[in-house]
């Protein structure tokens, strides 16, 4: 396999409202952080590449766009996702309970081979910690998923999270052979020229 080979993967974010899903993506993709990030970042999806020793992984990152608030995510969201980051807020125990239910939801609705990472976000707020690292770590180990604590605010572990996921993704899986095509506008809109 040549080192220049680029592998494309869809990555979805899951987790309760206001745990910092969008902030993690914005930090990773644009290296920015806004204390008062709007609940939705207004993008269909963002892309970012991770350079590994052997290959390049290009993530197509889908944010929930707020549809997680009433658990109203469409099947389309889970479909074809090779990787998922399930986010909780280390200062909010409810969000950790939520994260565990998102893992179940993903296992039920997503691809059976989806690679999952659990991210304990807002790790910069150590003084307000309510979810112990060990508790989340042992849950992650039991379920065979990655676990990192991150801070979108000070960028700690954010890149590492995506790199660890990129490493775990299968690079030799054959791309599905489907003759599906994306729709494109006609090159020249003069209908009568066809």
């Amino acid at each position, binding site marked *: 396999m040549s080192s220049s080979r680029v592998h494309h993967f869809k990555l979805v974010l899951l987790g309760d409202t206001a745990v910092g899903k969008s902030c993690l993506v914005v930090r990773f993709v644009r290296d920015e952080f806004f204390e008062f990030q709007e609940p939705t970042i*207004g993008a269909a999806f963002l892309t970012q590449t991770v350079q590994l020793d052997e290959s390049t992984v290009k993530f197509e990152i889908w944010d929930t766009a707020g549809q997680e608030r009433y658990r109203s995510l469409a099947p389309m969201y889970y479909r074809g996702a090779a990787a998922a980051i399930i986010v909780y807020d280390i200062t909010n125990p409810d969000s950790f309970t939520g994260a565990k239910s998102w893992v179940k939801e993903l296992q039920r609705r997503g691809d059976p081979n989806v690679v999952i990472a659990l991210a304990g976000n807002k790790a910069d707020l150590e003084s307000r910690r309510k979810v112990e690292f060990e508790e989340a770590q042992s849950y992650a180990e039991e379920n065979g998923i990655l676990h990192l604590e991150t801070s979108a605010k000070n960028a700690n572990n954010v890149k590492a999270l995506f790199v660890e996921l990129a490493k775990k993704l299968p690079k030799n899986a054959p791309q599905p052979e489907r003759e599906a095509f994306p729709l494109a506008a006609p090159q020249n809109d003069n209908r009568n020229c066809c």
Partner: protein
Amino acid sequence: MAEETKTFDWLPEGTEALADGEYDCIVLGTGLKECVISGLLSVKGKKILQVDRNGYYGGDGASLNLTNLFEKFGAGDAPTNMGENRDYNVDLVPKFIMACGNLTKMLLHTKVTRYLDFKSISGSYVYKAGKIHKIPTSGVQEVLQSPLMSLFEKRRFRSFMIFVDKYKEESSETWEGRDLTTMTMNQLYKDFGLQPDTAQFISHAMCLKLDESHMNEPALPTVKELQIYMYSLMRYGTSPYIYPCYGLGGLPEGFSRICAIHGGTFMLNQDVDEIVFDAEGKACGIKCSEDGKKMMAKAPMIVGDPSYFSQDKVKPTSQVVRCICLLNHPIPDTKDSESVQIVVPGPQVGRINDVFVCSMGNSLQVTAPGVYVAIVSTISEKHDPDEDLASGLRLLGPILKRFTSVSQQYEPVADGTSDNCYISKSFDATSHFENDCDDLLSLYKRVTGEELDLSINADSVEGDY
């Protein structure tokens, strides 16, 4: 999850705010039309709340997995020997998308195309004298080989098609002396010497006319439909139709994501108890309840499908009979096509309305490998669904499992200006979305007061680099 509940002075005693309480528009149902409207409104900066009583997107036009399909029709537990539940995305309303039609324009306009992959439908067939025939698609050669017409008729057919291809409403030199705003379709066919069978085939299988009423009307609209058919055919190859992988349910889901990205709020599994009207009889909000908790949200306009409105706001139109069949083989005599449409023109089988058959399988990711779904549909004429559908069901070969439904179609009694209730029409019996798009454009105009300009991209959000 814990959420802060907002309070408002307009909330009745003992009632909490539903979601954020105040919206620019509340949309009831997540069918395709409702989702397109909410998507377009949110792009314009409107604050949207969209509510659906079902736990899935799509309403009457959803694509269901095996469990939901069996549950929907009260058919007991889904069988365990038919593959993975998640492999199934069975459409409740069978339709294909015309490659150059208005729905395609809306998908491009909103960039919902980013979320979906499409495939061409492999074959388009028409029923004639007891057999099904492939509709010629690849120009002269296939037309000449088709058993649909005699040799002399093929020549006439060809010159008719050349005329239609060249015809332009705005340039009279292409009219060849024919004024299609006064000449009827019947007269136009006669002018080219086309036989009634050929005319029937063109009208029903290509222009997708449902009955014969267009024959005595000006030819122009029918000719335009034929042009869309021809351009669509040239766009992607084997048939004029395209279809989204994983089923039509992806369409409303995609538009809902556009709305969500622009701040729309979505609540599935949420029944609506009541639409609230003010003293002047104008809709101003909705009431819902959950676990005994009463909730209300307010908005100056309510958009929705007919099932959310009281009987005095909608009127019944026709009844559509549909039979969803699961097969373990492709439809016979279609060269094992993975996906087909068959049109049975009503007059061929002693009916007024055409019978449509749509079939697709695992290549479109709507069934498990080896299983095919075929949906037969028509407008009810006989008051016995099996009799209505017989001419289509007969073409399918052995059927593993079938689900028959008769659904009453509704349309709004008013345009919404007097009561703020903007109601869509039920999905019609056609096998395509062209009429549904007309309803959508009308709904959009009623809601916003402007025509939808499909020539520009609605979604100019940064970030999809």
